[in-house]
């Protein structure tokens, strides 16, 4: 055949597409080995992906050249972040290219041998064999899976795997379980769906320690809402009031920062309620028609109960509150007046303040302010999440072994006794594992978690891990925990894998984000989701039947079909198009954008997310789902729980005891926070507060030098952790800025550099949860758990400091 220019061009046209598809067959390391340089075939592609550095759920656009990542920017279409990003997002580049990443699976020779690289087949065989053996011996329940902060189908997969395999011990470490609403909302509003706040519309945000701009439910969304509050078009400038012992970035940007004695937020909230009621500033209409338990009331047995109003008026006088919280009366009055006069106002306080012993009532007290100003069911107020219409997956097939194993009590005790209301209790795990109560753990899977760095009882955890015959880690890095594992099956980093995210936080709307692998895997790693499917397949039987997908991608493909078929929502698109669609939909028109699911799927991959901004349940009927249909100052559902527990366990059962409910009577069900006398602890005169930096990604991020080098702006520091001390406290102890100090608690002591920071209370020192190497506040914090979330109490420890 004679080649002519014409035929050449014809053939070329045909192969161009194929070339694009063939991209990514070789891993980068293989390519590097062959001296292929970037100039060879640089095809610049922006691949939509998801930032996984925190649970914010931002959409990113990964700039790739031949699968080699060259940059990250925000996905302008993504509804969570609208193209904006926080500092952590850029650390992803360094995470991906970390030279110390694991190059492939590793196994340990014997219990105390060294880790050595092995092949995937061998590694999978080791894991599967052990799982099969345990199952055969009827010990499937002794397999525990500890999972960190992630959402979506990876969570679904592990849950299904645990169910099908036959273990109740799928234990999650996360601050906010997306499938549950905040407990308070459940108790007082009866809502079962996750919560949301209409921050974009609010004109006053009163925040009880919620790090809106740093670490709350995604700093980017928080910052966008803040920017909106500041000035947007011709709207008047909104107001942000922040209650926090620490002058956080949020506090610094707030129009008013209210420094408070740690752990007394609930008392302040009740003080504000007192002022609102006393000055008749509360929303009478809402309180009268939509609340229960505000006034004194008489139940069916004729017993008289104190209402919220009288409780507050009687117990929480402003002088009492001021003394307990350290907030001047004047400030309380001014905040209360702002709260009542600037509409719409929203009160938030999910995290931070209530990391104290009486978490539940603190939250109830804060939440009752929302009812008092009547911002439930109005724009700029509270919301709940809609659901994602994903394809329902077939029920898990459980054989006898699975049923038997799954029915055993959980190793962490969640859902039982004192942890009755908790779905996961990772804090209790090390102790229970050590005492083999109720049974020993035979295999421990660590996925997206690093307890040996992040668990307050990490020493106990390490000891407990020693006793587990098989510890499997899925970490892509040789972190503290994976260094002690017997088997490491390294996951891809998030830029290298298929993933999804089902965002259920804060934003108010539902959103499904989808991402394909943006980069060719740099090393011989595998997406853990695929590994789970692979293990399930090898185990066979009902397990394989419950997890029938060949790849994770197939599962995502199946799940997202529901969105296509739902007949609502859209794949995100440019602003103008979106607004038009919104307007049409409000008028009742909804036209499908795609003819086939394949088109929909391709568009989803290309744009990054699907969302449904219009069908938000915001009306009062949707928000008030208690039996009475009202907001309950007096929580009848809590009463029911307590009554049931008392019936089951007696008045001295662990749950009621833990609640401290034996002698609290009605106060147990009302937002009543006990005012404890100020304690003067001689040995440990200072209180320790830990907080999360906006620059600290999930898992610490020791391999992200940019973030470690400039972790904060309020103090001058880099590469090492520090302790913030008030200048006066420093002067009293002879500590000057930059000195090395010992911070000592009853549990232990760590050596840190002191930073004098006027944004703390004089009786408080602050240590950030810093990402890098070196001492960690977990060395000081006692392993106390919050009874309602199972999560560690991080701000209750007392310490002393001295020059090192």
């Amino acid at each position: 055949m004679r080649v002519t220019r014409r035929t050449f061009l014809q053939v070329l046209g045909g192969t161009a597409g194929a070339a694009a598809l063939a991209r990514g067959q070789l891993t980068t390391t293989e390519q590097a080995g062959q001296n292929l340089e970037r100039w060879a075939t640089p095809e610049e592609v922006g691949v939509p992906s998801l930032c996984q550095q925190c649970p914010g759920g931002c959409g990113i656009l990964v700039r790739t050249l031949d699968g080699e990542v060259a940059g990250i920017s925000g996905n302008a279409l993504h509804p969570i972040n609208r193209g904006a990003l926080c500092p952590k997002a850029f650390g992803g580049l360094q995470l991906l290219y970390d030279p110390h990443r694991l190059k492939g699976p590793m196994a340990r020779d014997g219990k105390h041998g060294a880790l050595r690289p092995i092949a995937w087949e061998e590694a999978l065989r080791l894991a599967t064999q052990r799982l099969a053996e345990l199952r055969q011996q009827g010990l499937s329940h002794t397999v525990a899976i500890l999972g960190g902060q992630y959402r979506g189908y990876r969570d679904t997969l592990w849950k299904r795997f645990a169910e099908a395999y036959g273990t109740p011990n799928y234990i999650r470490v996360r601050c906010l379980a997306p499938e549950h609403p905040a407990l308070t909302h459940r108790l007082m509003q009866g809502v079962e769906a996750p919560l949301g706040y209409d921050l974009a519309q609010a004109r006053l945000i009163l925040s009880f320690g919620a790090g809106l701009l740093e670490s709350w439910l995604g700093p980017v969304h928080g910052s966008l809402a803040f920017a909106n509050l500041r000035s947007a078009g011709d709207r008047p400038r909104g107001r942000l009031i922040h209650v926090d012992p620490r002058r956080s970035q949020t506090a610094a940007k707030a129009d008013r920062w209210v420094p408070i004695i740690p752990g007394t937020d609930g008392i302040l909230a009740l003080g504000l309620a007192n002022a609102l009621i006393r000055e008749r500033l509360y929303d009478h209409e809402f309180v009268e028609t939509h609340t229960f338990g505000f006034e004194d009331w008489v139940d069916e047995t004729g017993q008289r109960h104190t209402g919220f109003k009288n409780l507050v008026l009687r117990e929480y006088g402003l002088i009492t509150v001021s003394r307990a919280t350290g907030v001047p009366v004047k400030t309380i009055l001014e905040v209360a007046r702002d709260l009542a006069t600037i509409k719409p106002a929203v009160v938030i306080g999910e995290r931070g303040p209530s990391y104290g012993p009486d978490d539940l009532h603190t939250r109830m007290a804060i939440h009752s302010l929302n009812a008092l100003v009547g911002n439930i069911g109005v724009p700029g107020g509270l919301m709940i999440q809609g659901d994602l219409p994903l394809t329902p997956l077939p029920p898990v097939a459980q054989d006898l072994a699975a049923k038997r194993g799954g029915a055993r009590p959980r190793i962490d005790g969640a859902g039982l006794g004192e942890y009755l209301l908790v779905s996961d209790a990772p804090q209790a795990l090390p102790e229970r594992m050590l005492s083999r109560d109720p049974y020993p753990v035979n295999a421990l899977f660590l996925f997206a978690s690093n307890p040996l760095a992040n668990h307050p009882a990490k020493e106990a955890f390490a000891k407990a891990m020693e006793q587990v015959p098989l510890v499997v880690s899925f970490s892509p890095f040789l972190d503290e925990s994976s260094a002690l594992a017997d088997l490491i099956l390294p996951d891809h980093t998030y830029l290298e894998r298929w993933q999804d995210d089902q965002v259920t936080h804060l934003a108010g709307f539902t959103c499904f984000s989808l991402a394909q692998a943006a980069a060719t895997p740099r090393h011989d790693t595998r997406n853990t989701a695929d590994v789970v499917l692979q293990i399930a397949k090898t185990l066979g039987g009902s397990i394989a039947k419950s997890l029938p997908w060949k790849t994770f991608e197939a599962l995502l493909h199946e799940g997202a079909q529901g969105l296509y078929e739902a007949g609502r929502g859209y794949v995100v698109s440019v602003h103008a198009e979106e607004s038009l669609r919104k307007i049409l939909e409000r008028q009742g028109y909804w036209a499908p954008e795609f003819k086939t699911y394949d088109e929909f799927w391709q568009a989803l991959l290309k744009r990054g997310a699907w969302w449904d901004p219009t069908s938000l349940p915001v009306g009062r009927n949707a928000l008030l789902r208690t039996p009475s249909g009202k907001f309950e100052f007096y929580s009848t559902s809590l009463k029911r729980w307590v009554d049931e527990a008392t019936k089951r366990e007696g008045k001295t059962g662990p749950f009621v005891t833990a609640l401290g409910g034996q002698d609290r009577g009605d106060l147990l069900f009302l937002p009543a926070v006990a005012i404890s006398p100020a304690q003067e602890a001689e040995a440990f005169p200072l209180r320790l507060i830990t907080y999360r930096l906006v620059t600290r990604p999930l898992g610490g991020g020791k391999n992200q030098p940019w973030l470690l080098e400039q972790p904060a702006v309020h103090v001058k520091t880099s590469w090492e952790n520090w302790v913030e001390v008030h200048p006066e406290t420093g002067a009293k102890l002879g500590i000057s800025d930059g000195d090395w100090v010992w911070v000592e608690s009853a549990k232990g002591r760590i050596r840190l550099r002191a930073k004098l920071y006027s944004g703390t209370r004089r009786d408080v020192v602050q240590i950030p949860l810093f990402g890098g190497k070196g001492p960690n506040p977990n060395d000081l914090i006692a392993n106390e758990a919050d009874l309602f979330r199972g999560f560690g109490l991080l701000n209750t420890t007392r310490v002393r400091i001295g020059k090192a």
Partner: protein
Amino acid sequence: MALWGMVIDLDRCTGCQACVMACKAENNVPAVGPKEASRERIISWMQVLTEEDKEHPDGKLRFLPRPCLHCDDPPCTKVCPVYATYRDPEGIVAQIYARCIGCRFCMAACPYNAKYFNWHTYQKEGPGQNPDVSVRQKGIVEKCTFCHHRLQKARERALAEHREIEPGEYVPACAEACPARAIVFGDLSDPSSEVSKLARSPRAFRLQEELGTKPKVIYLTEGEARG
């Protein structure tokens, strides 16, 4: 001819440093490591400075992101003995790395300390870098360029499509990332552009205005609009 400028709204800036990190990723700015950092050699083209407001005893903090201010009358360019830094016709103060002899006169002359020196070779060319920006060697001065490589690329794109460059087509990485939407970038010579409008705001001020450097990065003060 365009006159590129930036407005930074201090009322919105939350000090999160997204701009800082976006800049580092975009411009191949290295992390210098703990040892060098302790010697005050961090390179941060965009840097968030923190100022404590002495008037409020409760200590209001002011976060002040400081890129190169791209002065219209830059004190740094005049002193460069080799034309390695100069103001280009569109107002961008350029830094030509291949020309710089490393005398650091421009650093000494800049009243905003916007210039940074490569005290060592902090990095080599490698994966994960932006190929549009050169990797600087030791011994030369570098600074914020308003991501002018983005301008080159936008221009090139526009040229290929036979059109003029559109507003919003050229935005530096910091402005693109800012989650509080505090950074606005655009053409100051176009009176209808958003930057121009904001630059005329009563809240607008320039850093060290009295020095007569005429910076093209304009700040908006905190609080409600005055005047």
